[in-house]
């Protein structure tokens, strides 16, 4: 089993630079194998998949669909055609909103999301709510930064047609009990969208076991290239949905006034796709499998435990995370009391420590918590205790600069 120090050697950007990269929640770094797979594709196999009848294009098609198969296996989808490639999780969510929700919801229906959702879920669902008249409802938190189980049962009702929930919060790091939400929502007759963008590089997700109706995630948060997203949908649901984007390669026959559409998955993949990126995603999945989820979890749990213990020693820091380590991912939000997160991040930058600061595309959550913004550290398998020590040292420097000005 590889250690995090050995894993770090696979990431040239980290190996060749002396910074602590603590922003994997925004985007992950890439191992050599992913970069090599993309390079290999463009130097040996590049042609437009599905288009050419020559061998280069046939090979490109095969590589492209091999990657689809890898995605299907990763999340245990029954059929490869249940995997649709998009440009990111946001596009996947928009596809569901425009193609499924607008055609299946009406004014007496309800949409339920959690208050910890990313804008990429909230904004499309607001659009659906405004266009269909369906009511948009929120599941709020208990006092330990977890979704309140009573809220779940109160908000999801017989009128609920769609529930959108993330497996892990990109701000709080809370791991949600997706399984019980899906089971309850199904009992009420609702379909469930699960956003696993923040968890797929960290913990496994099984679409068959959980019985999720839709699942979305982005390649770039799981060691793959930017510009590729995934939508999983149950075959029987996807088959009934109209296309989202119209154009080349999503068609069967095109007449002057009418068109019939291609079967899945092509129906939802209009225009030339990011084939190089998809192949990179395939290599990223190989990398995750090579390291193994059990090892990923072990490394990240240890790092998170260490980071939390060190942060708790700093009296000037407030943490925003659940006390239940079992329900906490490797994302940690905090503030230095009285210091704005942007000032913290700028000074940390000087000390070669890269963190995220701001509202993390989750303004409703921060407003609900009564804070403007937070500092966020998000850890991955390539991080080390040394990165965390650097963070702690730099936070002490921030406090040194600000302490005489902080108003109590």
């Amino acid at each position, binding site marked *: 089993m590889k250690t995090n120090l050995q894993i770090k050697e696979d990431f040239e950007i980290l190996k060749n630079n002396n910074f602590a990269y603590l922003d994997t929640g925004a985007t992950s770094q890439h191992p050599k194998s992913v970069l090599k797979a993309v390079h290999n594709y463009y130097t040996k196999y590049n042609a437009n998949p599905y288009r050419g009848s020559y061998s280069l294009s046939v090979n490109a098609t095969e590589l492209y669909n091999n990657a689809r198969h890898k995605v299907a296996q990763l999340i245990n989808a029954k059929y490869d055609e249940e995997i649709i490639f998009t440009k990111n999780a946001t596009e996947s969510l928009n596809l569901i909103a425009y193609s499924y929700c607008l055609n299946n919801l009406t004014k007496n229906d309800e949409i339920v999301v959690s208050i910890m959702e990313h804008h990429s879920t909230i904004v499309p669902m607001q659009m659906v709510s405004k266009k269909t008249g369906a009511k948009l409802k929120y599941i709020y938190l208990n006092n330990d930064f977890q979704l309140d189980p009573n809220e779940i049962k109160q908000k999801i009702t017989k009128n609920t047609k769609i529930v959108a929930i993330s497996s892990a919060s990109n701000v709080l790091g809370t791991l949600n009990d997706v399984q019980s939400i899906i089971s309850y929502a199904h009992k009420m007759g609702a379909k469930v969208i699960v956003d696993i963008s923040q968890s797929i590089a960290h913990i496994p997700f099984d679409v068959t076991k959980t019985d999720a109706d839709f699942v979305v995630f982005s390649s770039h948060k799981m060691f793959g290239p930017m510009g590729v997203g995934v939508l999983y949908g149950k075959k029987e649901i996807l088959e009934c949905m109209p296309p989202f984007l119209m154009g080349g390669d999503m068609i069967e026959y095109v007449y002057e006034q009418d068109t019939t559409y291609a079967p899945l998955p092509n129906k939802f993949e209009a225009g030339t796709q990011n084939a190089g990126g998809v192949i990179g995603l395939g290599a990223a999945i190989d990398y995750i499998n090579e390291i193994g989820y059990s090892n990923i979890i072990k490394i990240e749990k240890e790092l998170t435990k260490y980071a939390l213990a060190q942060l708790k020693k700093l009296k000037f820091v407030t943490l925003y995370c659940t006390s239940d380590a079992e329900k906490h991912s490797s994302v940690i939000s905090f503030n230095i009391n009285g*210091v704005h997160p942007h000032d913290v*991040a700028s000074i940390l930058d000087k000390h070669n420590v890269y963190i995220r*600061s*701001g509202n993390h595309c989750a303004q409703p959550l921060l407003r609900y918590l009564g804070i403007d913004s937070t500092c966020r550290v998000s850890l991955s398998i390539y991080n080390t205790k040394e990165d965390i020590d650097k963070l702690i040292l730099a936070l002490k420097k921030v406090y040194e*600069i*600000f302490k005489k*000005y902080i108003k109590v």
Partner: protein
Amino acid sequence: MTNTNDIDNIYTDLIMEHSSNSPYMRNLDLPTCSLHGHNPNCGDDITLNLKIENNKIVDAAFVGHGCAISQSSTSIMIETLIGKTIDEAKEIVDIFINMIERKKLTPAQKKKLGNSVAFENISNMPARVKCALLSWRTLQNMLEEK
């Protein structure tokens, strides 16, 4: 990485004092104009209140919240502009924005900026430029209507 000197030149006593203990962070009685400025990504949020009499800024103040740079930039801007005519204020706003956009300033122009020249090095911290500019852009919009 941000250069160490840039950081040291930004988080100075002058800037920290203005951000934590600004004499201009208060409500203004009967302002003649008021404008709200907001950086959606970072949550910096200010309301600028001015009292303009006979074409002159006789008093100004702000309320709001945000990072040390946005708050101190607002405070120091007000300090620089109280007592100035609208035309003088417009000129100073243009000079400040030029400075942030790394345009070369003459010594005379720098002098007109007063303490606001303290933000010169913010141009080397691109991620923070919008923080320093928030109040100045807000004021620019306000004065354009005058």
